[in-house]
């Protein structure tokens, strides 16, 4: 592995009220070290932007945090609980969920049905309850339908509730994914390129929604995004990832003016 000519600052671990803390996370795929040593933390109610050149390890880091990959070393702490090595579903139930970079459409489901997959501990998820406690199933389903309707209205998707989700445009589907994730009622939301392939007008909408969720629900958000303008507008702080490590963390202004960031993006870096 090459060592950059510039120094790595690492993330700021001294924040108050940390909802998510990542310490010395490492992941290797054979000879390839995708995540070398990542430490960072998120304060409750913050929007953290995660940027970095291609191959910096952003998506790998998301998979490590959300449980889709098991780290080789290091730890992830959510709300004071060590969740290292937990399965993604267990992590989601504990309060952290994610969206995906490429749209994951569920065939044969309407928008509304998509929304109804989100809620946790639904009585009707047990076969026995559907047989012997139909009343509880009905109660839960009613409550969830109502919550789904409210969220769809918030995201201005209510007119599409009965449409097959496969008929939505790319941008509308990104909105649906965000709304569906909110059905989980998470404390922490990981968004993997929420505006990739979305037209500028809808991207602006998405930014508004994300800000609103963050403000009104004290939702802590992590965003990977290649659209630098979008993320600089939305997130503070910004964490810069490079070659599997945290290059620096700071406000959009400090990151923008940091020479090392430019260098990392231009592929300068060090001699191997």
């Amino acid at each position, binding site marked *: 592995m090459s060592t950059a000519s510039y120094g790595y600052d690492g993330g700021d671990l001294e924040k108050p009220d940390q909802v998510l803390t990542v310490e010395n996370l490492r992941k290797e795929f054979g000879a390839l070290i995708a995540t070398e040593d990542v430490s960072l933390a998120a304060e409750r109610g913050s929007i953290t932007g995660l940027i970095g050149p291609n191959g910096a390890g952003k998506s790998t880091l998301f998979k490590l945090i959300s449980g889709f990959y098991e780290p080789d070393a290091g730890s992830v702490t959510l709300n004071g609980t060590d969740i290292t090595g937990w399965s993604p579903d267990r992590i989601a139930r504990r309060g952290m969920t994610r969206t995906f970079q490429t749209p*994951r459409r*569920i065939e044969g489901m309407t928008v509304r049905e998509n929304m109804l997959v989100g809620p946790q501990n639904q009585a009707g998820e047990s076969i026995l309850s559907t047989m012997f406690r139909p009343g509880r199933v009905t109660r839960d389903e009613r409550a969830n*339908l109502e919550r789904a309707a409210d969220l769809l209205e918030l995201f201005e998707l209510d007119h599409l509730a009965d449409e097959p989700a496969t008929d939505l445009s790319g941008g509308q589907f990104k909105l649906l994914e965000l709304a569906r994730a909110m059905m989980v009622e998470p404390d922490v939301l990981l968004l993997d390129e929420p505006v990739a392939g979305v037209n500028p007008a809808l991207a602006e909408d998405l930014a508004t929604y994300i800000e609103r969720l963050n403000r009104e629900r004290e939702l802590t958000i992590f965003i990977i995004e290649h659209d630098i303008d979008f993320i600089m507008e939305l997130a503070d702080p910004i964490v810069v990832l490079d070659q599997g490590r945290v290059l620096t963390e700071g406000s959009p202004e400090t990151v923008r003016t940091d020479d090392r960031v430019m260098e990392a993006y231009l592929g300068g870096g060090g001699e191997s």
Partner: protein
Amino acid sequence: MSLASTGSELADRITREELLIGGATALFLAAVAGAVAGGLLESAFVVSSLAFAPVILLLALGLNVQWGYGGLVNFSVAGFFAVGAYSTAVLTNGSDPHGLALHPAVGLVAAMAVSAALALAIGLPTLRLRADYFAIATLGFAEIVRLIVLNEGWLTNGGLGVFGIPVLFEAGVLSGPAELLNTTPRNVGNVLIGFLAVAVVFLVLRRVQSSPWGRVLRTIRADEDVGQALGKNTYRFKLQAFVLGSVIMGVAGFYFAHYLRAITPGAFEPIQTFYVWVAVILGGSGSNRGAILGGFAVVLILRGTRLVNNPVGAIETLLNAPIDVLDRLLFSVAVDFRLSLGLDLNQDALRLLLIGLLVIAIVRLRPQGLLPPQREHIWPAALGGGGDAPEEDRE
């Protein structure tokens, strides 16, 4: 407009597919009834075909839970079918080789319990793996079941099979209808019991499918990662679907054993698995009604081919009909040739040929099946309806 009301309107609407399929089914039934009335078809044959049909219908409903709901590739349909059949056969037969002669109710419980236990035993270690490994494991399981049945003679009587399995329902009240239909009371009883089982399973599955449980499985089928990201323990759901489907297949085996009263290993060849797959895919994966429809289509091919004694001859007669007419018109002067296909085709081969053609036709013309799920699956009671529409009151 509230979400709930648009949903129930959708549910009330009959789709074009439903109309077409319903019409075609009605026409077909009318044709069968006409053929029976006109003496072209024996009513006894129709009844005995109906007594066989629940076997395929139950197997198709079971596979639909696994493949249609959850996307699980189970190549062991014949395996669980055999497990169900032998579980009840061994316990209830009155002669060879055990003579335990227990009540069929015991056989039913055993068929379901053994199927469930074996499904757990295969599913627990393999459902965590990638989907293709699971498929291979089920293929192996079917072969293991077949070999055990063939070789463990003390339990299964080996290749000789188990005889003296009791009839499920044969009462005096059945003799009237049986006489009317020119068949045996046993056949009539089997039709009743068989379709009762199909109805019960269908109703249970319809309920389960429109529940949040069914929704999670459809999510898993489309993209397991999404299910996990939304907090669903996908492994547990897959395991439940696999066990539920296998238990239904076990019930099919139970019914089959009592329907035939004697079973041999030959009845559980791997080809049975693929007949059931064809039924589910033809009907429309994920649809319970589709599984029933596809199941009937397969039964039609399996049983209908029995009516054709000389398939090649029949096709040749059909092809030569215009030549015959021409011949007669010309007073047998000019035409003295007939088409010959030069084929030797028995009923078994015809059956396979038809199934093969059917598979090609589905894949080319209608890959989603004849009657795929027609509307969204949301717990019906929660959508209000029936007068008390609480959703609308609140809005």
